[in-house]
């Protein structure tokens, strides 16, 4: 595993901050009624995408989770997040061309597209990995989903197929313990999702999803396993959803308000703060640098907002030409 240097750590930190700032921008735009569709905040989840996608090859395939509509993953892979903002504003410069208002597709960075039915990324990612294996150039596929996504049959079929064919794929489950209004503990027969890996003869690991380095280390191990032809892995990142399922929705568990104490407890281990404190202690970061990064990210978000609003809408006369490829 490549050891992370100071620059890598700083980049990871910056990407955590960028993710948070862009998420806040999305929330503000949603609150102001400017988004053209729903928004699912990724606050609390940032370390997973950033930790997992740092160090991937540009041609590795990536299937992001819906939280932040792909922010942390794409940012860590090198995509300019202003495309996310533009997408949410339905603009032609968005990373899905503004056609859906939230789908992510950046083929140059290995993001081939997503579906909007939760968990269907399992089977699509098997296809990406199958192509990669056939091509034989060492590409791997990483796919993110939630504790809800794992409950779909797609997981079972995909995991078995990928294991039998030793496909280069890493599945990262962001277990925030809620699927929409329903708590994981009331809809799952087992406490840890990592347990499920045994049914497919693949490694299943539990990781602290608030710790960006822990995520990075676990994922890198799985990535190496995948690249060397040994097959798929399942990584469960324990995390927490700070906000309601999507902006404007009630924040309940079943039908009662979620526990404020529990949210507060998780926020004590906020992934951005946690890493910041660590890097401060290790003197990789300074207070001044933190402020500088924060300001730069604010500026970037501001610029992205302007970019979004100034971008044109897609040309509707193109729609009918996009149903079938020539």
């Amino acid at each position: 595993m490549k050891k992370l240097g100071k620059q890598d750590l700083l980049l990871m930190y910056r990407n955590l901050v960028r993710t948070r700032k862009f998420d806040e921008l999305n929330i503000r735009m949603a609150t102001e009624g400017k988004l053209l569709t729903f928004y699912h905040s990724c606050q609390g989840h940032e370390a997973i995408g950033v930790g997992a996608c740092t160090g991937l090859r540009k041609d590795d395939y990536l299937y992001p989770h819906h939280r932040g509509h792909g922010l942390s993953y794409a940012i860590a892979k090198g995509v300019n997040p202003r495309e996310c903002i533009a997408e949410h504003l339905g603009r032609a410069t968005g990373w899905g061309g503004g056609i859906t208002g939230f789908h992510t597709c950046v083929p140059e960075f290995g993001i081939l597209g997503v579906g909007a039915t939760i968990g269907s990324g399992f089977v699509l990612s098997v296809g990406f990995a199958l192509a990669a294996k056939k091509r034989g150039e060492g590409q791997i596929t990483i796919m993110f989903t939630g504790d809800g996504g794992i409950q779909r049959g797609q997981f079972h079929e995909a995991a078995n197929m990928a294991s039998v064919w030793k496909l280069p794929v890493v599945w990262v489950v962001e277990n925030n313990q809620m699927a929409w209004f329903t708590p994981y503990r009331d809809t799952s027969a087992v406490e840890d999702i990592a347990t499920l890996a045994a049914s497919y003869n693949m490694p299943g690991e539990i990781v602290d999803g608030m710790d960006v380095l822990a995520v990075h280390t676990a994922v890198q191990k799985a990535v190496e396993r995948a690249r060397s032809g040994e097959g798929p892995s399942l990584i469960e990142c324990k995390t927490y959803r700070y906000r309601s399922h999507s902006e404007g929705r009630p924040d309940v568990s079943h039908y009662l308000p979620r526990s404020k104490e529990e949210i507060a407890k998780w926020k004590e281990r906020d992934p951005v703060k946690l890493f910041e404190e660590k890097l401060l202690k290790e003197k990789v970061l300074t207070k001044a640098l933190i402020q500088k990064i924060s300001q730069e990210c604010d500026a970037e978000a501001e610029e992205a907002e302007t970019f979004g609003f100034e971008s044109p809408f897609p040309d509707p006369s193109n729609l009918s030409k996009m149903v079938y490829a020539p």
Partner: protein
Amino acid sequence: MKELSYWNAISEAIAEEMKRDETVFVIGENVQESPFLVTKGLVQQFGPDRVMDAPLSELAIAGATVGAAMAGYRPICDLTFADFIYCAADEVLMKAAQQYFSHNAKVNVPCVFLGVAGAGFGNGPEHSRIPAAMVMNNPGLKLVMPSTPYDAKGLMKAAIRDNNPVCFFFHKKCMPMKQEIPDEEYIIPLGVADVKRVGSDVTVVATSYMVHLALEAAKNLEDIISVEVIDLRSLVPLDIDAIITSVKKTGRVVVVDEDTECCGVAAEIGQQIMERAFDYLDAPVARVCAANMPIAGAAMEKYVIPQLAQVQNAIEAAAGSGFSA
């Protein structure tokens, strides 16, 4: 009489039926809080055993619905978005539809598949369909698509009491609509269309939210064209007699349906009109439907989904040049 919103009319119907019949229960994702409100409040009244928050498992939710119905219960399965019928097509379109027929009418499948349907909020191609034609193309399923609170309540009660699987697609854009609802119980039988506006020049056959578009178009055109608006309310059974009666009067028809045009609801209705009233038609049956493409989201949605102007234009075209202002 009391004023109820569309969603509240639906939830009231469900509550009444749950009270009346212990075999009725609700199963689905997040049905206790109910993101689309139609089962909200039920858990407080009936408890979590009859309002069951399920895992994110459409196959199991829909399959358990079919199985429990076969075993004597009357489940109401909330698919959340109607689009998620794709995620359990084997269970809904095949098993629910066919079990009764395949087994010589020995075991029936009384259940309701609820789905919030349609466009209007830019939610994109996987959250905006009204998969009506897919349901109709699989005999054994009934299909209800109410346009008003009053209809929604009466039809939901009929759907729950029906001895067959009924897909009940309620429209996102109808959610806030309000209407006076009688205090006494009433049921609207499936298969009876409602003439929502009487007219004599052009018949508009409409479904779900499109009924409101049709009524608006009719109003806008009232000085020049007398438009009759038929709200089908249920698509299976289809009240073809009501359509034909109107067509015989007007000779001109526009079908307005939000499902995808190709092999959609409107094609079936158009064809049936041609088969039964060819000699009465003064013009081809016109259709206004979702364009033949996925339902784009965000700002592009309106270029795929029928808009008022299209409906109006189609009515004017059907009426023919004699009617233009």
